[in-house]
């Protein structure tokens, strides 16, 4: 890359952006990239039949991981498409009676943008605030539900801070008021146990490439009883029960199915390891550095996501300094902008701390040695930057920097 010289490929700690494809997944996919290239919708020859069988097998693998029936799974291009179908599709379908949507301020951009789109069409949207731990207030949710509320959309695991929302409780409230409940579970799939029955969700968005599967494929869970209906975004050949026309990409779908099956077998093992690695990372950094804050709830979070803020350090400089560690300051979608993350702002994180956040994403293939190296490099870089920082010097001298009145510029 231009201007950047590194000794080797950086160690990868950005699992929330995307995860590497598991070799077991690739092994399942490759046959469908070579000889088994049939269109799964072809009903007149073997090529079609074998592809269709593989797609249906994948459908049941995905369904098994979330406790659904295979008839409730629709394959899409990814969680963004699933979120769009859910939010806009449900509201468009029930638009005569339902004019109101409830979501949270910390949702993924694609849910927020879909909501914004609905607002332009005249729907009303309530953006629930979250506490400083990143979790919504259930009483507030209850209060906001109106007779014309058509959808509640709350993500399971937050992509930036890894906080897990109380899904069962939200599901219970939605059931009480008979409001459809949608959740974006892209970051939760294969990482925490998911049960669509227990959570009472009507719609669930899933992604392939966050569970060591391929990019470009996702799934949408749509409840059959009571039946939830949506207006399709894509019209055409009527594939996927008319919800998502377009040829189903057999290799990708097979990959997503294989990824779900591996995740089901490995969830317990992975979770134990990832939890241990997260502790190692946090303790390692905290041992050597003061002024390190975990963003979001510490108890109710997915261990593979550790979002930290380093006081008195400028986030971009820290990211640039960590050349040998592939991490990000938050979501990959917004990583090009220098603005602090809207998720951290919704948590009420101070502007200066929101600017210094780093998200460490730990995954199935992360090693202890990588964590130790990441700790070593982070500590070194933060110490170096703090040494240069006049703010840090002032704090050490006992000046409270919150009391300083900065001149306008």
């Amino acid at each position: 890359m231009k201007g950047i010289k590194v000794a080797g490929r950086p160690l990868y700690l950005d699992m929330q952006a995307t995860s590497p494809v598991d070799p077991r997944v690739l092994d399942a996919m490759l046959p469908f990239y070579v000889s088994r290239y049939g269109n799964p919708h072809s009903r007149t020859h073997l090529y079609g039949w074998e592809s269709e069988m593989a797609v249906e097998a994948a459908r049941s693998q995905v369904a098994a991981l979330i406790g659904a029936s295979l008839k409730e799974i629709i394959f899409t291009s990814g969680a963004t498409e699933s979120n769009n179908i859910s939010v806009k599709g449900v509201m468009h379908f029930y638009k005569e009676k339902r004019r109101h949507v409830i979501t949270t301020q910390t949702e993924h951009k694609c849910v927020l943008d879909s909501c914004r789109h609905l607002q332009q069409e005249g729907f009303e949207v309530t953006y629930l605030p979250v506490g400083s731990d990143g979790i919504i207030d259930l009483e507030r949710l209850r209060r906001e539900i109106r007779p014309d509320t058509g959808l509640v959309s709350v993500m399971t695991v937050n992509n930036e801070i890894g906080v897990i929302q109380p899904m069962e409780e939200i599901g219970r409230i939605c059931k009480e008021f008979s409001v459809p409940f949608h959740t974006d579970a892209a970051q939760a799939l294969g990482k925490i146990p998911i049960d669509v029955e227990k959570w009472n969700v009507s719609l669930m968005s899933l992604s392939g490439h966050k569970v060591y599967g391929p990019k470009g494929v996702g799934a949408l869970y749509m409840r059959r009883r009571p039946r939830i209906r949506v207006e399709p975004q894509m019209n055409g050949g009527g594939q996927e029960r008319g919800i998502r026309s377009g040829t189903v990409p057999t290799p990708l779908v097979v990959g997503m199915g294989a990824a779900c099956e591996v995740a089901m077998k490995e969830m317990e093992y992975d979770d134990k390891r990832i939890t241990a690695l997260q502790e190692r990372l946090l303790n390692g950094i905290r041992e050597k550095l003061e002024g390190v804050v975990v963003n979001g709830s510490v108890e109710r979070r997915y261990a593979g996501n550790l979002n930290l803020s380093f006081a008195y350090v400028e986030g971009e400089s820290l990211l640039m300094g960590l050349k040998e560690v592939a991490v990000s300051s938050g979501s990959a979608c917004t990583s090009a902008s220098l603005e602090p993350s809207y998720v951290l702002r919704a948590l009420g994180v101070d502007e200066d701390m929101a600017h210094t956040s780093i998200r460490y994403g730990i995954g199935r293939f992360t090693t202890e040695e990588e964590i130790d190296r990441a700790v070593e490099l982070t500590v070194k870089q933060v110490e170096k930057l703090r040494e240069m920082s006049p703010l840090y010097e002032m704090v050490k001298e006992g000046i409270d920097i919150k009391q300083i009145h900065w001149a306008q510029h």
Partner: protein
Amino acid sequence: MAASAVAAPTRNEVLWLYRSLLRVARQFCDYNIREYTKRRTIDAFRHNQKLTDSSKVAAAFADGKAQLEVAKRQCIVYSLYAPKVKSVMDVKRSA
């Protein structure tokens, strides 16, 4: 197939599978996959050590054999598309 799945493998067969898996693991050019395959193999065998039910032992053995085939194939695939620059974790170790 069904008949062979019931018979529990001998001690030698199990050792052969263990060594074969570790050998393939070492051949992966990707740092993370190499370490994972090693670790997962060791942990799985340690976990299954306590198995006494012969049908369960046979099932675990069959599963391990299937994994060995996957690892052998993927080891080749990974080597075909190995990036020119190695992982920083491999670079420092050799230096």
